[in-house]
């Protein structure tokens, strides 16, 4: 592939339409699940009760939650099947697999934050933060699907398994939900919206494109790999320039 095909108007194609749609569906399902789920978990709050009453009562909320849960489950399972099939048939590289470099990158980046190195970690297609979130969604998602099904069909499950599994599944489901919600609200929204490097919004997952300067800055190894050009030795003072181009 030629460099001229890769870069159009200073932007590099990063995500296919399939991934864009997948993210939007996942985002919608997640939002619905959080709204209908956490309002049940925190049932004592006025806001929760307002949500439940305006969605047509707790029975309706539970129904919506289960439908959204089915959508989320289908998305997650499809993603795993498609993703692993792609890797098996060498359609795409296993770029999400966690390796030793991710750990060293994390340490290096923290050292950079503290000022003990003058350059952040050099990452490939996905940096360690993105891998952390990705696997959080996949593993957490599988846990939510499993515990959610147990809670949906308690009598059926207890026919074959001990009864204590029901309250245990409830504890896991509700705690994991809170964790996922907090990680998304704090970590994901910071990285996608509030981080000064992307503010007001990282549009990559919506348009599928990323600016060359951000690519060089955030995924230098990938940039070098796909273009054959050097991403350039990036110094700390360059970040400001990156931000301007990004906008």
């Amino acid at each position: 592939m030629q460099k001229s095909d890769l870069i159009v108007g200073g932007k590099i194609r990063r995500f296919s339409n399939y991934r864009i749609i997948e993210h939007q569906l996942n985002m919608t399902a997640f939002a619905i699940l959080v709204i209908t789920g956490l309002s049940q978990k925190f049932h004592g709050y006025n806001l929760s009760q307002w949500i439940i009453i305006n969605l047509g009562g707790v029975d309706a909320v539970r129904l919506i939650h289960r439908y959204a849960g089915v959508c989320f489950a289908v998305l997650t399972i499809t993603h795993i099947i498609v993703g692993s099939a792609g890797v098996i048939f060498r359609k795409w590289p296993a770029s999400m697999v966690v390796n030793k470099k991710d750990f060293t990158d994390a340490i290096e980046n923290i050292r950079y934050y503290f000022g003990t190195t003058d350059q952040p970690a050099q990452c490939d297609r996905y940096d360690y933060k993105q891998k952390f979130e990705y696997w959080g969604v996949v593993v957490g998602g599988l846990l939510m699907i499993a515990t959610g099904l147990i809670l949906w069909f308690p009598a059926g499950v207890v026919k074959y398994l001990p009864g204590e599994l029901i309250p245990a599944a409830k504890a896991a489901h509700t705690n994991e939900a809170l964790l996922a919600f907090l990680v998304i609200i704090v970590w994901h929204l910071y990285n996608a919206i509030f981080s000064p490097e992307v503010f007001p919004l990282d549009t990559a997952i919506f348009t599928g494109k990323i600016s060359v300067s951000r690519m060089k800055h955030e995924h230098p190894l990938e940039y070098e790999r796909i273009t054959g050009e050097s991403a350039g030795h990036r110094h700390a003072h360059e970040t400001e320039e990156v931000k301007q181009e990004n906008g």
Partner: protein
Amino acid sequence: MRVRLFFVSAFALLFLFLSIAVTAAPPPVSESVQHCLGCHGNDFSLELQKKEKLPLFIDINKFTGSVHGSLDCSACHAGFSAEKHPARVLKNIREYTVSGSVICNTCHTKFKSAMHAKMTEIAKKGGKVCVDCHGAHSIQRAPKGVSKDSGYCLACHVNELEISFRDGEKQSLKVDIEALPLSVHSKLYCSDCHFGFSAEEHPQRVFRSKRDYILAASESCRRCHFDKYTKTLESIHYAMLSQGNLNTPVCVDCHGAHSISHTGKDRTTSAKRCEKCHGGIYKIYATSVHGNALFNENNQDVPVCADCHRAHNILDPRTFDYREKVPQMCGNCHANKTLMGKYGLSTAVLNSYLQDFHGVTLKLYKKQKDFGDNTTTKPIAVCIDCHGVHDITATTGPNSSIVKANLIKRCQKCHPNASENFPDSWISHYEPSLKRAPLVYFINLIYKIFIPFMMVGLILQILLHIWRYAVNR
């Protein structure tokens, strides 16, 4: 000698005089009366046809103290005199009393009140005649001008009076004067409740039945107890009454009429009130852990009917509104630390229910209903579903298996495919711990540590990132 004779005779006369005075000299009565007393001053009686004995003794003191004390016997007993004493054949005492009362009419030609006319009118059918109330030889003047004083009313109502209803039923109008002072209303006047009645007024009322009379009489109570009356308007009893079921209880059915006592002092009495109509349930209650403690140990801490069903605003227990209130009802005692401490019972039972799936659902249903959503009809399991309604059993001891058996039956109502071990999924009001539900305990523990650890780590990274960015600029 003459002087001596004078003193002796004077003393003799004085002694004679005194002895006559001391031995209760007969009061001055007319000669003809004395003539009658010649025989009737003695204790003897006449055997009538029906083997009844008619006493013929006249207490002259009572007679002279009566309003008729100055009359001759023959004034009433016409036809009898010193010369004439006709022999009569009498069937029984009642016949004699009724026939004797006719004589009163010769002087008292007009009845003072319509009440008297009515009472003598029904005399033929076994009602009252004059002497039944006023007596015969000891007639007293009726108290006058004390319209508020109960004594005026009691002058008649201590007697065996009766009212007949149109359906033929009868009701005694005799007031139990023994019970009256014990009533909380002992300081009230009759007319405070029986308004419209006084020394001047005694309206004649006609009721279709005894029940109609009781229902009308109960209307009096609300003149003072309006708060209680308004509460009864919300009750299932009132709803049934207004639908035409006249047998539903009104005030006097539970509280009594002339013997109203303080309520709530003794729980047994309170429970017994409901027994009158709800006898079957009362029996079941008596065998429950609460009823048993009340009746066998006289334990006054236990709930009686009115504690759960309320006394005046008794709700229909089959409604959602009632079901929704059950956890709080039980919680009134079972979440009370001092009360439960006496019996070594846990007070966590209420919250462990309310915070669980069913408790939350119930609470949210209630909220939805408050916002006008009446579509929720699912009967969510509450305390009584597993522990019993009137037959509540202890969760420890020989009957504890009943609770377990109830549990699975109750689960299957909403979870039709629930298996025998399904109730295990409810960890029975216990907080998850190493002993009880260790898996739940560990999962909660892990997240309790992991969530803050994760969040603090991520927030620190964000802050470091911002700080680095700011420093680089």
